[in-house]
């Protein structure tokens, strides 16, 4: 059976429209995949590292029931969790091509140049060296006050490292830093009525 010429023409037009749509869709999909592959794999690597550190910080925190060392480990945990949340948000925004805006953040979100990243990495390396030295020092003691103080120093250095990592990822992937205030040294100080040395000692 022969189709009327008008129906035949409509069929051809439909086939052309369908093919054009398929090609356009494939091109857009290819573009999206090509664009997101690089940043996603880079972000995934960073997220894997941060998540491994979160697991380690949780394990360390569980060793203590309370005290100065635990409070610093918990602070490190908060910084790491904030870093993970920001990286995850960035990853999703890239995948779905959503532009993130942080209207309440003081520091503008921007990807830092290589030189700035290198400077942060240098700072990070120095902090890691200090933490390793403190760890070696703490390992020299098996208990007592001096070891407690050394462990507190290790915990403080680890907080500094986690904050520098947050700074690095923020500069690398372009998201603003959430400010988390560290407990001040005075928070651990004993409070009470200040007396003369002669009366107190």
């Amino acid at each position, binding site marked *: 059976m022969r189709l009327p010429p008008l129906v035949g023409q409509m069929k051809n037009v439909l086939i052309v429209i369908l093919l054009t749509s398929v090609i356009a869709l494939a091109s857009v999909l290819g573009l999206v995949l090509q664009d997101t592959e690089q940043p996603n794999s880079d972000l995934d690597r960073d997220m894997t590292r941060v998540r491994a550190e979160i697991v380690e910080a949780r394990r360390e925190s569980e060793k203590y029931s309370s005290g100065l060392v635990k409070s610093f480990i918990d602070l490190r945990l908060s910084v790491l969790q904030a870093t993970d949340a920001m990286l995850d948000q960035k990853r999703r925004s890239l995948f779905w091509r959503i532009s993130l805006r942080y209207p309440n953040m003081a520091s503008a979100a921007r990807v830092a140049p290589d030189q700035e990243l290198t400077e942060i990495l240098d700072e990070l390396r120095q902090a890691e060296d200090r933490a390793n030295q403190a760890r070696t020092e703490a390992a020299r003691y098996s208990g007592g006050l001096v070891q407690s103080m050394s462990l507190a120093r290790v915990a403080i250095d680890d907080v500094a490292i986690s904050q520098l990592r947050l700074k690095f990822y923020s500069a690398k992937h372009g998201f603003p830093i959430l400010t988390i205030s560290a407990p001040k040294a005075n928070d651990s100080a004993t409070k*009470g009525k200040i007396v003369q040395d002669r009366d*107190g000692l």
Partner: protein
Amino acid sequence: MKLILTLIIVALSSSALAQSDQAPLGLKWGVSQTEITALGAEFREEKEDSYGKGVVFTKLPQVIADAEIVLGSFGYNDRLYRIVIISKSFANDPFGSSVLSRYNSLSSLLSEKYGKPSVNHRLGDSIYAEPRYFLSGVNNGRTSWYTNFKTPEIFVQLGLLAEDSSSGRWKIIYENAAIKKDFDKVKQSREKNAL
């Protein structure tokens, strides 16, 4: 007359007893963790260590202006027998001049109170003998700087600590001799039973 003499002796001995109970910073030797709160102290419990149950005091009846951390040990029988006072950090001073000056004034004060001390000041060798590496030496354990005071009732040690090569702290350890003796006995028997 006999009655008056007895009363004087009782008054003197009770005053001496009250004096011997008096610990630094407005605390009392031998009190339990529950009793110590009645003195106006607040604390955070720490893990048991080689001195028994330990606490970090967050509030005390009296504090010294440049003290930052005060630790208390209650042994295994819940009786306060050891107090450690650690100062704030004297930072950016590799020579340790400021912390040494404070150490010397505290040493004079404690000498007035507890008598002639036994002084242990040993400078490290090599670079640690140089004044600019004084705190480095303390930090590395090459230099030791402490003074012991001893009476029949109490043992006091004033010493220096270093957090790094340029930050130092002074530290005073007080130990009540009688309660410490009891603690040592209990500790020894616990160790014996554990073996």
